[in-house]
């Protein structure tokens, strides 16, 4: 166990030395990784902001209540009383004649509707106190149970559509993140491969004097993980610069809409998660690359 810890310590120190020995190459690789990661990272943050924006919008979802043609006056009064309760912000009665007049005017159907008996029901248009989807559904269900109500129409389509669009965006972010994770593995693997080949002699000699493949691989894995971590930090840098550049224009635009909307930095959890993942993928690329290179060196001997 102590031997194992010592090996880890040695390997880690060796990895830091190797990265430090080629600062330009290390930085360039970190930058390549950083740019790759900042794309899905930036998209993720952008979507988060859209999501927040959608939540903040003064949403005005409406519930339309269509009354039964045979509803009694008592039932109508009961409904009107129910709509005065505190969970309803606003309720407007639309008698069927008014609805028909509006329809005729709007669609230019006056000629057609003139001779007909009015097919439209009396209706209420109601705005609930709370705009959340759950509350909307609850109020709608509640109203639907009242006697004399023929049908409830929940006007939340726009919210559903926005959510659907955001869901596509989120899926896109994960797909993109997956692709760029592969890119990360490739960048790391490529950088490590060059290092393994540059250390061919050391590897051959180490093997002759009793080094296990695990011992040989370990410093390279640390290099990969550290390189990935640096890539993650570089991505953070790229996004910080982008955020700084975008902040003023975004706040200006929000101001024009009378909104106090502004850009927020990622949370600590998100930062830690991204750094952890980049280190992991850097490690993975190194593992694949070293294992393959070791096999080649073994075969070439």
């Amino acid at each position, binding site marked *: 166990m102590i*031997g*194992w810890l*010592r*090996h880890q310590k*040695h390997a880690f120190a060796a990895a830091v030395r190797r990265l430090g020995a080629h600062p330009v190459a290390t930085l360039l690789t970190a930058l390549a990784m950083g740019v790759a990661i900042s794309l899905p990272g930036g998209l993720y943050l952008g979507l988060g902001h859209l999501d927040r924006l959608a939540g903040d919008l003064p949403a005005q979802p409406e519930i339309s209540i269509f009354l039964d043609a045979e509803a009694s006056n008592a039932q109508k009064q009961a409904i009107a009383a129910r709509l005065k309760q505190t969970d309803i912000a606003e309720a407007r009665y639309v008698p069927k004649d008014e609805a028909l007049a509006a329809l005729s005017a709007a669609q230019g159907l006056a000629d057609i509707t003139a001779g007909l008996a009015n097919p439209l029901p009396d209706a209420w248009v109601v705005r609930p106190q709370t705009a959340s989807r759950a509350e909307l559904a609850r109020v709608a269900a509640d109203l639907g149970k009242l006697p004399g109500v023929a049908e409830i129409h929940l006007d939340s389509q726009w919210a559903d559509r926005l959510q659907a669009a955001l869901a596509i965006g989120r899926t896109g972010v994960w797909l993109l993140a997956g692709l760029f994770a592969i890119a990360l593995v490739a960048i790391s693997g490529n950088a490590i491969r060059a290092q393994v080949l540059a250390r061919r*002699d*050391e590897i*051959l*000699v*180490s*093997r*002759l*004097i*009793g*080094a*296990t*493949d695990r*011992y040989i691989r370990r410093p390279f894995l640390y290099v990969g993980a550290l390189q990935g971590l640096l890539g993650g930090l570089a991505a953070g840098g790229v996004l910080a610069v982008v955020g700084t550049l975008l902040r003023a224009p975004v706040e200006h635009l929000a101001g024009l809409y009378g909104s106090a909307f502004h850009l927020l930095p990622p949370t600590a959890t998100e930062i830690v998660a991204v750094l952890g993942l980049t280190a992991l993928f850097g490690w993975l690329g190194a593992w694949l690359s070293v294992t393959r290179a070791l096999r080649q060196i073994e075969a070439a001997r």
Partner: protein
Amino acid sequence: MISFSQVTKRYPGGHEALSGVNLAIEKGELVFLTGHSGAGKSTLLKLIAAIERPTSGVVSVSGQNVGRLPQRAIPYLRRNIGLIFQDHKLLFDRNVIENVVLPLDIAGLDRRESLKRARAVIDKVGLLKREKANPISLSGGEQQRLCIARALVSRPALLLADEPTGNLDAGYAADIMTMFRDFHQVGTTLVIATHDDRAITALGGRTLQLDHGKVSEAAA
């Protein structure tokens, strides 16, 4: 300690380096392998250290069938064998003491203890003043002694040397042979491939003559 039973080694391309070799080397023995170049001396040493595997026959070291050893067990076999190479196989990206300490790092020893042991061995081969030097700045004889120091630092029970005095002038060669005699006296098993007859007569010991892949016992 070492036994070969009907060992044949044929390299890809058909060259047969060893043909049906039988031999036994006891613990603590000092054995010279002689023979013209290409007689199979290096191959014999490589089979002992599992650097090559026999085409047929059994090579056994300390009771282990080395030819059948799984790949992952080979490093642990090699940690008990000190290897001295004609071309030294030193690493030029690190100084003398870092070269010597490498086997101990690989074995996972405490760093301070490792450095102490490395320094003691470097002192024994007379390179203490050069411990911070890069091996590339050392002379051929010094490089050979450094290679010996690296082979000794893990205190192996078995030392294999392939032409350890091959490129050295007589003075250095005698020094190195004297060192080998000292190790022999403390009980290390040594197998030395050489065509340096002066060394053999100076040290005495058993001599195995290799000729076209066949081994015969030579009179000492």
